[in-house]
């Protein structure tokens, strides 16, 4: 049978505040264990949480950037469970009244815009970390991370494939980075994802039984875990079985998911309103003030790029993935006056070189003005597009500008017709048989002659001129 996947994602993103959510400890990482702690985040007797206002501001900003309604009266709740990395025996989170509700994020699916609904965004604290030492058999607890502010972004079950899930996560990450509330770095563990997935026969209205795959920590793994899970569930149904509701984990080494606990073993978290914190009351004025701090978001930028620079949706979507990338593009496009050509270069050579090194646009050795300069040298005929690839690689490697590279390497395009005519004459002379065939009607051989001429000129001959002169000379 053909199935359709129904996927909802819960993303935990760490907020980039300087201090923790309920105390003044700094949110620094990689420090010696338990050196970024105080009585409050260690959960000593009698201490009380005091809310970091910046964290609330960041969540509201995220809510606004994802078209959410901001809850005027929101409150915290305690989620109770025992674990050594949870010093109070409960996590301060939100339950009934989250800060943001009912929004959406737009992704591109087959070139078309699709909305993925956001159910809610809420604020909570992170736990610490248990370290298991193999020698002594003892477990150690590091509470540096305890109390780091997290937001949980819960999507509607609007996602229909592993690819869409990856697109959604990328878009979400891009939004969080645009508004500078989280660096959303999955590798550092500050952007984690729980995947709820079920399948149903194509066309069915009812949802199937879902499994939750917890704590997947890279885009690639999310995609792989979902692909595996969809296949696994399809196989169960095809064999006449039933999918059980359970929590599963992803083994990235084997590329499989496995059961962690069944529904019956699920925790009863005994949520209740946190009595140590007063409700968060957010006025329209506060919301408006925060809204003003939000600059152009990816969606708006994408639409503008399409309109203003005549780019295809796909290009515009790619170039607006990060604020830095979009800024790079706009500068180069403006300086060169050739937006489409700049887009092609960025989507082609520039991305290829950056990706090969795993670098971000911020680290690109070729700055926008240099790229614009090079593109101008193409359009004014100084270098050919083909040569330009060599020039660009050299610019990328050496950090020099296009003019210097072209001068040093002698890559200026030959547009002197006399010089080209001499080369053409030599080529024709060296290939009499082909020349005869061409004259006999084998038009296809024209390309062969172009290639030979370009080769003889070491690629520097102006291709337009070569075409023009060859046509004349070959038929003489």
């Amino acid at each position: 049978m053909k199935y359709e996947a129904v996927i909802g994602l819960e993303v935990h993103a760490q907020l980039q505040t300087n201090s923790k959510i309920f105390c003044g400890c700094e949110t620094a990482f990689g420090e010696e264990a338990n050196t970024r702690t105080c009585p409050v985040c260690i959960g000593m007797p009698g201490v009380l949480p005091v809310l970091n206002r910046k964290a609330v501001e960041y969540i509201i900003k995220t809510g606004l950037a994802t078209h959410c309604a901001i809850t005027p009266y929101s409150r915290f709740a305690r989620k109770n469970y025992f674990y050594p990395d949870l010093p109070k025996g409960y996590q301060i989170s939100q339950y009934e009244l989250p800060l943001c509700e009912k929004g959406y994020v737009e992704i591109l699916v087959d070139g078309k815009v699709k909305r993925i609904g956001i159910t809610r965004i809420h604020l909570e604290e992170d736990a610490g970390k248990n370290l298991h030492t193999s020698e002594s058999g003892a477990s150690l607890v590091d509470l540096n991370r305890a109390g780091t502010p997290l937001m949980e972004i819960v999507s509607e079950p609007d996602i229909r494939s592993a690819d869409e899930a990856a697109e959604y996560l990328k878009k979400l990450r891009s939004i969080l980075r645009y508004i500078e509330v989280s660096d959303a770095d999955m590798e550092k563990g500050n952007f984690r994802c729980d995947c709820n997935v079920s399948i149903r026969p194509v066309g069915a209205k009812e949802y199937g039984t879902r499994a939750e795959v917890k704590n997947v920590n890279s885009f690639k793994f999310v995609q792989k875990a979902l692909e595996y899970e969809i296949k696994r569930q399809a196989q169960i149904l095809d064999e006449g079985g039933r999918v059980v509701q359970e929590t599963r984990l992803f083994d990235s080494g084997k590329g499989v998911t496995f059961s962690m606990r069944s529904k019956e073993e699920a925790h009863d978290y005994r949520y209740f309103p946190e009595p140590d914190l007063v409700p968060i009351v957010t006025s329209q004025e506060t919301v408006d003030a925060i809204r003003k701090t939000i600059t152009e978001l990816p969606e708006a930028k994408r639409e503008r790029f399409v309109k203003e620079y005549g780019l295809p949706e796909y290009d515009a979507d790619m170039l607006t993935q990060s604020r830095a990338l979009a800024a790079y593009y706009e500068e180069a496009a403006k300086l060169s006056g050739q937006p489409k050509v700049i887009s092609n270069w960025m989507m082609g050579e520039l991305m290829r070189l950056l990706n090969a090194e795993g670098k971000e646009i911020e680290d690109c050795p070729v700055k926008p003005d240099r790229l614009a300069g090079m593109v101008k040298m193409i359009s004014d005929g100084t270098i050919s597009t083909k040569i330009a690839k060599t020039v660009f690689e050299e610019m990328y490697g050496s950090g020099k500008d296009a003019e210097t590279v072209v001068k040093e390497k002698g890559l200026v395009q030959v547009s002197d017709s006399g010089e080209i005519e001499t080369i053409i004459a030599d080529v024709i002379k060296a290939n009499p048989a082909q020349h005869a065939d061409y004259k006999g009607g084998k038009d296809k051989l024209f390309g062969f002659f172009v290639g030979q001429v370009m080769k003889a000129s070491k690629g520097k001959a102006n291709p337009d001129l070569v075409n023009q002169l060859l046509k004349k000379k070959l038929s003489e």
Partner: protein
Amino acid sequence: MELHDRTIHELRDMLEKGETTSRAVTESVLNRIKTVDDKVKAFITVTADAALAQADRADKDRKAGKASPVLGIPVAIKDNMCTTGTRTTCASKILGNFVPPYDATVVARLNGAGSVMPGKVNMDEFAMGSSTENSAFFPTKNPWDLERIPGGSSGGSAAAVAAGECIAALGSDTGGSIRQPAACCGVVGLKPTYGRVSRYGLVAFASSLDQIGPLTKDVTDTAIVMNIISGHDPKDSTSADVPVPDFTRSLIKDVKGMTVGIPKEYFIEGMDPEVDKAVREAVKALERLGAKVVDVSLPHTGYAVATYYILATSEASSNLARYDGVKYGFRAQGAKDLLDMYMKSRSQGFGPEVKRRIMLGTYALSAGYYDAYYKKGQQVRTLIKQDFDEAFKKADVIATPTAPTAAFKIGEKSSDPLQMYLSDIFTISVNLAGIPGISLPCGFTTGNLPIGLQLLGRHFDEGSVLRAAFAYEQATEWHTKRPKL
């Protein structure tokens, strides 16, 4: 009169006139502890050396021109308020060795005002109880009758004040834990409005109900201590950012124009007739002093105890989860694995009443029961609050007995938790409503046991409560009585 028998304001006057020194006062108190505490058992930890050092410091500061009404005055601290470097046990085995690296805000404020801490006083474990019999260490005795309980949970605070083992004390009140022991021991105890005094550093029992307040020898001293400990604290989000009046200005011997409400639901069958009589006479005295007495009704009073034991235990089940043997406090030996360590540490570390309440609260918050218990409890709490709002439209203060009986015998109710819970029947609603309430002596039983009058006020109107209490106290002699030990 011995120095240890005096009040804060008497000693303040003597200290200011140079008639005595803080060292002499502190020595008097420490000597008194040495003499009587074997019998009373009010103290868990006596910090004699530190207290004398603080006293000397206070004497020096006074000479240097420092002035404060509590400068050099020994104030005992209930052992659920954190004190830097001095163990804070909550009278529990699980925190038996816990030494906090920080001060509760109230402790810091007292220290800032130059008071002296003679030590930490006994209580029911984690403030859960009405008799101080639930201390993991030893029960405290009532200085008026050593075979009787001093009330609870701040029984150590009340007994220490009554016995002259300190000049004043701090207690905490979640359902009556300041007022009921104050009544039992014949001292004054005030539970301020919820949010009036910072809870930072108070080991939480039920966060939405807990409030710290003074236990003193008279109403003037209560006002003095309230002036020191009240006010917004940035470390406690639930502490109210409202102006704090000078409470001593409410101490006027005049209740003319005040209306005193009498709730019929608080004069119930089963109440000790001597208590009933003493309280009714106190109301008459207020009337003679010029107050108008009116009947008021608090119709949801009958649900208060049940509501309280759902909400308070729910919060407690969560608040006490941090005592897991991982980070500090008691850890049981010989555990097989993590779960076993949790189970053993908590089974061995908590006493039976604490365990009972953790189980009650865990049950009330469980999936499938939450709506029937916790949520319903919150709804009833709102109704109880509204009862008081209505009553305070007619009355400035409400007068009731503090407890249905005077101090009972040690062991008398410890086998029957429900009977024990009913000792708080008149005090519990006050915490649910978050309003201020004071207990002050209004007579003695024929067995020479103190009886308490409870006066309640509107939110943040401790002023009216103190005014009525002071006028009554000044018209009577009860506050001058001291137990013979």
